[in-house]
């Protein structure tokens, strides 16, 4: 296990290093000087230059990269030009929306996908299965922001059950937060649940056709017992990979849904920072999100190797 761990850790560090270079290079080639952008077109060259000095824009590329990375390693994400406060504070603030939203959506995804996937696999070829396959096909094809708009029309405007947008903050109480996050979470969960239900179904069908399932049936276990005791556990590996991927997607990919509901999450932060040329925010938050994705993939790989020794040996 240890050599495998070291090897995976090494490739994790290399990926992060290359990712940081790519992000830094992207941001450096952005046309438009943040200092003159912030001061407007009528600014004096002296003032612009003074601000460039203050923002550290007059140093070389290498110096800027090194100071950015060494800051990141110490947990210092830099200072936002527009908010005039540490990026880490802003991010911490936004995570209070993004993390609960991602977890809420992931919980809904699992709660929908598991029973639906198991049901479709257990009654394969039946009307239930056909319905599930059709419904999930639709769920994958629906653009989630459109589905969100439709839900706003029905559940926020017509019925008034949930809020149409905005986030009241955690001080407003759990009920207000649930009212604000339910429609976005459902919109995010719908396509993800459709994908996961299909993965669950096909993974279960693969497992159910294995020899050891036939043996279990032959020794007298009922279909139900075989399903719960043998098939489900073994079918979980591909399902877990997808869940890992979905979590990182939900964390970073909620950007459009956050825009639909005017939620102050991470995605919206990056989106606004890009339009305001607040490049340090973009740089640090994108790096943070890449780190989260790489880390989740790493943990999923480790979990595999833990569960299935064959994977360890092969690499």
């Amino acid at each position: 296990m240890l050599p495998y761990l070291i090897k995976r850790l090494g490739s994790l560090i290399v990926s992060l290093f290359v990712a940081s270079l790519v992000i830094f290079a992207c941001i450096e080639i952005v046309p438009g000087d943040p200092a003159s952008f912030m001061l407007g077109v009528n600014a004096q060259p002296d003032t612009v230059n003074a601000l460039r000095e203050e923002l550290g824009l007059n140093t070389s590329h290498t110096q800027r990269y090194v100071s950015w990375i060494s800051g990141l390693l110490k947990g210092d994400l830099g200072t936002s030009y527009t908010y005039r406060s540490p990026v880490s504070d802003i991010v911490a603030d936004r995570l209070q929306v993004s993390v609960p939203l991602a977890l809420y959506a992931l919980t809904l995804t699992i709660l929908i996908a598991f029973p639906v996937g198991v049901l479709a696999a257990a009654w394969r070829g039946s009307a239930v299965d056909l319905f599930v396959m059709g419904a999930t096909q639709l769920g994958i094809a629906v653009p989630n922001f459109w589905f969100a708009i439709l839900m706003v029309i029905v559940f926020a405007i017509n019925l008034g059950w949930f809020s149409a947008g905005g986030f009241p903050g955690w001080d407003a109480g759990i009920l207000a937060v649930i009212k604000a996050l339910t429609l976005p979470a459902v919109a995010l969960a719908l396509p993800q649940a459709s994908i996961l239900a299909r993965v669950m179904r096909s993974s279960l069908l693969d497992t159910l056709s294995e020899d050891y399932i036939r043996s279990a049936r032959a020794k007298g276990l009922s279909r139900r017992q075989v399903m719960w005791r043998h098939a489900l556990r073994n079918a979980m590996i591909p399902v877990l990979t997808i869940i890992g991927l979905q979590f990182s997607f939900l964390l970073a990919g909620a950007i459009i849904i956050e825009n639909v509901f005017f939620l102050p999450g991470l995605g919206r932060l990056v989106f606004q920072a890009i339009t305001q040329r607040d490049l340090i925010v973009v740089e640090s938050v994108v790096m943070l999100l890449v780190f989260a994705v790489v880390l989740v993939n790493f943990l999923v790989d480790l979990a595999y190797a833990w569960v299935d020794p064959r994977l360890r040996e092969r690499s």
Partner: protein
Amino acid sequence: MMSETRSSRTALKSRNLFIGVALTSIFALAALLSLIWTPYDVTQLDISSKLKSPSWEHLFGTDHFGRDTFSMVMVGAQTSISVAFIAVGIGMGLGVPLGLSAAAYRGGLLDEFIMRGNDLIFAFPSLLIAIMITAVFGPSAVNAIIAIGIFNIPVFARLSRGAALPLWTRDFILSARVAGKGSARISVEHILPNITNLLVVQGTIQFSLGILAEAGLSYVGLGVQPPIPSWGRMLAESQTLISIAPHLALFPGFAILLTVLGLNLAGDGLRDLLDPRIRRTRR
């Protein structure tokens, strides 16, 4: 009994293929037709007939500028389909040669380099980077195409490498080697024709993802710019008028849904039709 369920299953699949191709063709034809004719001019503003509900005069009603929504959906099809199509073309055009060379020089430095590069692109939150690219270089159709195209490269590189690897150990490749053909020539003449089916199926799926991505980008204002209509921006504009003209939110959304659904069904159907190995196994 086994063969009976199998044949009904195949029939179901070919029905999927039929529906998928039919849906896709409708939108493709609408896009083509919009090049030469639309019921109304989409750049023509007619404030006097703004926010009309659907009628025989305006099948899908009109928007806040009095533009005909039906015509806009037609031109929107052209926008969506061309952006997604070119993006998939970029992904295939760059990804397949990369994957084929990785397989041809498998285990070598080039292979390692290409595959790690792919992993890296996969690690980036795709939508976020697409938004970054379009925002940094300015919102336009070209930048949306590039942003979506980049994420298609690793998909095709991985797929073609994975499909090419087992082929390299086959006898017909060995005989091509003996005949004195080089790796590049074998890749083009013998490997590529054998993986075309897979590429077509994946291309269809990526096409549908591209349509969704284009809609998302133009929804946040980073796709094709006005006055050229796009489904995503039509939805964004409809959102402010949701309580007075809900029909504006319906038609572009259904257009996206049906196009993506059509492509997905066609992709599934094609997979079953073109790849008998999958058809024979369960799934």
